[in-house]
């Protein structure tokens, strides 16, 4: 009954909403002005001591990795039930998407792979972006820590990337004013920049981090990145014990490939976050290791760090399952099941670093199922109280 009321309320997703209300600009819709939508707090689902978590496998290697997560959770005895929702990439209709978003709102937490949007129609919004914007997941955190056993060019990296997740270059507001001339708008708001900066400094304080670097391009984009930079600097003054500096994005990339150890926590807008996170993932050993966490005020979604669909390696049993397993560990921590999270984390570290069971992308020759089997073995044989 309640669900039906939700379904009837128009959700601002691409052309569905634009057709429905004509007197609101795309920007207002994008940023969910209170006139349009009331953000009602939906109680988080918790049935019988077990958490219900939404699982969105996505496309490409998503479904197989999700199967591994289920296996590992079964052996670890984690009290989590998954509600799986498949989103069809081929269709333009957003029914699956609305269903998925409602489910996440009901459960509060989700784990997802990369959802493909095959449509090249410019009116259809990218589904990943739609999920992030709808749930207002304004922070994306990537905790980049080197694994000692993995072959890579730089070792002992320990950087946290905090990236603005909803606006910036991913606002998806584009138009063709004249034929052959396209304008794409990058939006930066004071409130979002402030939220990100505050969250970042609080995170740094909570986890004992010493330095925060703000990455920007304010010498060229004076107003937009300038606003982001000014806001971050202003918030930084409230945390005098944490050192902060700023760096231009091209210089930052250059420094990352030669000397990444000078960075501790990095804050940036959406696109730069994408670039920097991929560079650091490359330095650590590949896209298959790190997991990313998307946080909003009410919801949290966990996913592999570099949002790759992996269509080329789907179904071949060579995809690296570690990223998705790390995402599941993050999810367990978030839900409060620290013991289970630690158990799986230790099993992962033992498999990768000590036993050196690695998939081809890390330079090993084992298959994904080998890696998962070894993780399960470690879990089964570990000390459990």
């Amino acid at each position: 009954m309640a669900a039906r009321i939700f379904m009837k309320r128009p959700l601002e997703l691409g052309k569905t909403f634009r057709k429905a209300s004509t007197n609101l600009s795309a920007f207002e819709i994008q940023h969910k002005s209170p006139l349009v939508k009331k953000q009602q707090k939906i109680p988080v689902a918790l049935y019988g001591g077990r958490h219900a978590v939404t699982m969105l496998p996505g496309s490409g290697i998503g479904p197989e990795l999700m199967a591994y997560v289920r296996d590992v959770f079964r052996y670890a005895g984690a009290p989590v039930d998954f509600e799986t929702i498949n989103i069809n990439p081929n269709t333009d209709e957003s029914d699956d998407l609305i269903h998925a978003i409602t489910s996440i709102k009901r459960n509060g937490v989700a784990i997802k792979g990369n959802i493909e949007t095959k449509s090249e129609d410019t009116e259809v919004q990218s589904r990943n972006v739609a999920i992030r914007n709808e749930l207002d997941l304004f922070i994306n955190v990537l905790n980049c820590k080197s694994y000692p056993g993995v072959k890579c060019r730089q070792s002992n990296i320990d950087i946290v990337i905090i990236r603005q997740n909803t606006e910036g270059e991913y606002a998806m507001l584009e138009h063709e004013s004249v034929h052959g001339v396209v304008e794409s708008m990058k939006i930066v708001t004071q409130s979002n920049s402030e939220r990100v900066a505050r969250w970042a400094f609080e995170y740094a304080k909570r986890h004992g981090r010493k330095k925060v670097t703000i990455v920007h391009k304010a010498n060229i984009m004076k107003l937009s990145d300038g606003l982001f930079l000014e806001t971050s600097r202003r918030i930084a003054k409230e945390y005098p014990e944490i050192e902060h500096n700023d760096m231009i994005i091209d210089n930052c990339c250059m420094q990352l490939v030669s000397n990444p150890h000078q960075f501790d926590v990095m804050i940036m807008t959406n696109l730069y976050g994408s670039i920097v996170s991929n560079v650091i993932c490359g330095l650590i050993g590949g896209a298959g290791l790190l997991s990313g966490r998307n946080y909003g005020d009410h919801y949290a979604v966990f996913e592999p760090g570099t949002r790759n669909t992996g269509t080329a390696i789907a179904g071949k049993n060579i995809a690296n399952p570690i990223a998705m397993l790390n995402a599941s560990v993050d999810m367990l921590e978030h839900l409060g099941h620290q013991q289970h999270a630690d158990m799986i984390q230790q099993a992962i570290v033992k498999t990768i670093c000590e036993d050196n069971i690695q998939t081809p992308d890390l330079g090993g020759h084992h298959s994904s199922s080998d890696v998962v089997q070894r993780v399960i073995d470690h879990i089964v044989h570990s000390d459990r109280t």
Partner: protein
Amino acid sequence: MAAKLIKILSNLKQSICKISKTSTKVNNVAQGNCQRSPSTGSRFYSSQVRKCTMIPGDGIGPEISQAVQKIFATAKVPIEWETVDVTPVRGPDGKFGIPQAAIDSVNRNKIGLKGPLMTPVGKGHRSLNLALRKEFNLYANVRPCRSLEGYKTLYDNVDVVTIRENTEGEYSGIEHEIVDGVVQSIKLITEEASMRVAEFAFEYTRENKRKKVTAVHKANIMRMSDGLFLRCCRDVAAKFPDIKFEEKYLDTVCLNMVQDPSQYDVLVMPNLYGDIMSDMCAGLVGGLGLTPSGNIGINGALFESVHGTAPDIAGQDKANPTALLLSAVMMLKHMGLVEQARIIETACYETIKEAKYLTGDLGGKAKCSEFTNEICAKISAH
């Protein structure tokens, strides 16, 4: 009366056609030894002395420019340098701008070599680099990044060329504050500019005998803008069937570039991605102090070194002229003086490989003049 006028006009038209026909004939004859530069359309005899504008710049600029001139003199390159100063002067309308003499010089010669310029913060004029770019309509920036033997970095096998659109994209400079606390910045992509840079990229690939062009984009998110850029690249790729063409997302390229740079050959991309990728590739080979850079325009080409002015070591004979020298070599290749370019380039690479005379930034103790002399010696010995 009208008939007479028409006759005069048609005679005029015929004579103009004749003149242009003879000039193209002359140019075709001269083609033998020259490489065609598609954008400038400038051709000349290989034995003719060519004038080039030299902008020494600030800081270490003057000393490295002198080093380059000395090396060119030793190699007997048929170039006459015309040095100009681009320090902004107050124009008649009260605004600061590049002095007219400099503009005229580059317009006349159509080729320029620029040292590092200092853009003072907060002064009354815009960035000089931006002004030069607008003035000469420089639409493509080419940065070849190659690992130098003798200077060890973590990456040994880098041989990438980044070609970046230089006029529009995210750097259009169109920004407004719509509402208090909400700022929008507009990224402009036009078909004309994208076609221009795509065509240049493919022609460059063909002339330099490279194999593959990769278009870097983010069309899954910025569908219309990067989509237009991609479409233009695809259209141009169809005209060059002998060159391999692929399209990759920006994140994938970043990820793969830091793991295995040898899988990329020529990259073509819009302004912002190009800025970041070219600096990242420069970081892979050892930094901006070793990377050449060229800006190709409709009315000419400007080659420059992209490092800073290094005011702390200016005047002490400690500077490394490699970046400016390699940019000058790029300039020679662009002008068609391929043989001399090869000699100078080989001499430079060998000097760095031998590692006997390396400047401070490469880990050695030699002075700039010693490094220059060593290169000159190698050229003379050739």
